[in-house]
């Protein structure tokens, strides 16, 4: 299979225009670290952003960075860190879960709307993404947004590109709002709570004025008790103050520790990357976004009929669940639960043969699906960009 690696936007435009003329179906990729995600699709050729690399603008005082879409994420992080800044949304690294190698690209961060534990405070990639350049399915170079963080000029196509998995256009450049890296991080750990008590504690912390930037619960498993994690970040004086207040607020929970440094960072990384679920062999892994107040009920319903393991992030609003890979990998049970409690479930990890037989993304209502198809056609009328990666026929 041919892999095109355009060296610039014009190159990409010619390749895609040609593919549209000939009806060549294109797999849209960066460095392929998320290739085993989404619906497996049949394509005739591949277009990769690998050769579109480099930071094109970085103004620390304006909190803005632009990079060509194939720029490796570690390079972006390095450049930001040198000025004490970072991408605000604490992006997940999927390589551990998916067992892939290579460096993820910044374009994919936008295309998949990646986020992490700080989502509850700082938003997801879509909230920091302020500008895009891309080539649509007609081979046209299109821009939307720009380099300033407040911009309501015209329809917000930036949001549509975020999370569209390369089905609407081939991103060539992305611009993100960035934030200062926090001076200090401290985590309050409460031990031995069951799921409901834990979410109650997290809700109370998130409903406090103390700017919680991480709120996760890892249920008890095997011999280890449950851990409920509440993270604060900021200037030293401020974190000290808020941590004391938080302890006072949650004083009815008796077993509390404060975790800082490398151990705490590793713990949050395991929450961010969902590696807490990867020690169980080859099971299917789902990611469910729901109302924080509904997470435990949803899990209880699922656990009645599935051999499931799980943990919570986002104060209970994000549930990571592993299920046996056999049959439909638990899809029908999980989808019944999201219908009852609201939200959506995405099958993040499963063998290709499983992903090809079921809906990897939450099925949409007819009305939304009609809009989805219309939007796809408005960007990619020939249907050549990552066809079927999200939904059949899109």
């Amino acid at each position: 299979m041919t892999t095109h690696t355009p060296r610039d936007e014009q190159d990409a435009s010619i390749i895609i225009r040609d593919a549209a003329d000939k009806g060549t179906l294109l797999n849209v990729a960066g460095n392929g670290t998320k290739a085993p995600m989404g619906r497996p699709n049949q394509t005739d050729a591949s277009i990769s952003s690998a050769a579109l690399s480099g930071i094109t603008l970085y103004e620390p005082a304006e909190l803005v960075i632009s990079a060509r879409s194939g720029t490796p994420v570690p390079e972006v992080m390095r450049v930001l860190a040198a000025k004490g800044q970072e991408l605000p949304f604490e992006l997940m690294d999927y390589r551990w879960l998916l067992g892939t190698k290579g460096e993820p690209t910044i374009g994919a961060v936008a295309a998949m709307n990646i986020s992490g534990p700080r989502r509850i405070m700082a938003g997801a990639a879509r909230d920091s993404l302020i500008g895009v350049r891309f080539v649509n399915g007609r081979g046209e170079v299109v821009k939307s947004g720009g380099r300033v963080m407040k911009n309501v000029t015209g329809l917000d196509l930036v949001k549509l590109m975020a999370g569209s998995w390369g089905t609407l256009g081939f991103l060539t450049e992305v611009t993100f709002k960035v934030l200062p890296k926090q001076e200090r991080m401290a985590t309050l750990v409460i031990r031995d709570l069951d799921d409901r008590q834990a979410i109650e504690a997290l809700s109370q912390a998130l409903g406090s004025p103390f700017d919680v930037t991480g709120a996760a619960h890892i249920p008890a498993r095997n011999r280890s008790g449950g851990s409920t994690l509440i993270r604060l970040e900021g200037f030293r004086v401020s974190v000290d103050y808020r941590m004391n207040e938080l302890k006072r607020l949650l004083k009815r929970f008796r077993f509390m520790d404060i975790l800082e440094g490398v151990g705490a960072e590793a713990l949050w990384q395991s929450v961010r990357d969902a590696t807490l679920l990867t020690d169980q062999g080859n099971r299917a892994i789902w990611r469910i976004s729901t109302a924080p107040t509904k997470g435990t009920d949803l899990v209880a319903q699922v656990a009645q009929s599935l051999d499931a393991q799980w943990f919570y992030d986002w104060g209970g609003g994000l549930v990571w669940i592993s299920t046996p890979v056999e049959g439909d990998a638990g899809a029908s049970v999980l989808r019944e639960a999201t219908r009852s409690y609201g939200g959506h479930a995405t099958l993040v990890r499963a063998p290709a043969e499983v992903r090809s037989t079921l809906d990897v993304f939450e099925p949409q209502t007819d009305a939304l699906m009609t809009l989805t198809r219309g939007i796809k056609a408005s960007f990619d009328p020939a249907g050549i960009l990552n066809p079927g990666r999200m939904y059949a026929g899109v």
Partner: protein
Amino acid sequence: MTIAFPKPDQAVLARRREIIEGLGRLVASEALIVSEDERRAFETDGLTAYRQMPLAVVLPSTTEEVSAVMRFCHENGVKVVPRGAGTSLCGGAIPQEDAIVLGVAKMNRVIDVSFEGRTARVQAGITNLGISQAVANEGFFYAPDPSSQLACTIAGNIAMNSGGAHCLKYGVTTNNLLGVTLVMLDGTVVEIGGEHLDAAGYDILGLVCGSEGQLGVVTEAVVRILRAAEGARPALFGFERVEDAGACVAAIIGAGIIPVALEYMDKPAIQICEAFAHAGYPLDVEAMLIVEVEGSDQEIDDMLRRIVAIAEPFRPKTMKVSQSEAESAAIWKGRKSAFGATGRVADYICMDGTIPTGQLPYVLNRIDEIVKSYGLGVANVFHAGDGNLHPLVMFNTNVPGEMEKAEKAGEDILRLCVEVGGCLTGEHGVGIEKRDLMTHQFNPVDLEQQMRVRGVFDPRWLLNPAKVFPLEGRFAA
């Protein structure tokens, strides 16, 4: 008066009586406004220089009624101009003669609040401040705070993706919106998002937010509510040079501090606002910053100490930290009344471009030159942290030609914003006001892609069609 409206569809005007009868079968009689006197209240919005009398005004009370009205308009080829409270500064809610106004202001209830889940589900006609008031008893608030928050509706905020003075920390509408009930032109009711974070599939919620009533009518919304900080305190810094104020902003952010608000006012704005609000603003400086930080007293003290240390090398002529609630309120009263206070001394048009903040000194000098070249004056207020600029171009309506000059100066200023890497509008929207400038920011291909997406929702251009896209070169699919 340089902005054109499309020619009204004579066939629709001729069917006015029939259309009104049809609408009368769908909503209660008090929800349908047809008399000229009563319609006049809807002929303009915050861009009062432009007025158009609508065919009729419908003020439904339920999503079902909105759906029925939309379906009727779809079937009868009648244009629909959605309206919240009519506070748009860019003419986003100005009607057309051959269109009905569909107002959501009667739908103003809070449907459900979850403090545990930190969300509120509201009808879209509730005011921005109304949401905060409904959750204030538990110490919560809804974060985006446009200056018009007392009057403006969440429906209008969603249509314009409204911002405010505190979005440096809390984001704008799109960052605080979790779900909407959207009524499409054909009457279909679409539920998008919900009480959870991030949409399944394409981010249609993000597309609807800021779409200026061109994709559908939002009748309900789910928004994030946040627990308010323990306290907040502003400080004032006055500088003798614009460059120093700009460099001070860069230094604060460079030091890793994101104040909850970072506002800039130039000398004319300071003088106008001080005369109105008696806020204790320094009158002898060229530029002033209002820097507000949040948290406990201890955190605020620490943060303000850092900020004062950062500001000192830029030789501020005035440094004043608010000492009381009353002082803080006065400082904000001055800033938030900038538009109203300017209105007391002159007629003005309020511009809303965004620029890369590093361009501030250059842009302010150029704005001064531009406005002077038209023989007019300008006062600048500015969200300095995010580069959102509000030049108030002042003129006298009674002097023939001055308003046209002000409009021309405003256009030149917005073109300048785009030239230095910014955009035409940071938070007010395009509406009719900036419609014809869109070609300065976007090339035909960019605009065509936007119009193709628009066409998915409204292929016949019946929804708020006079706005956003230049009248030339329109197409749907």
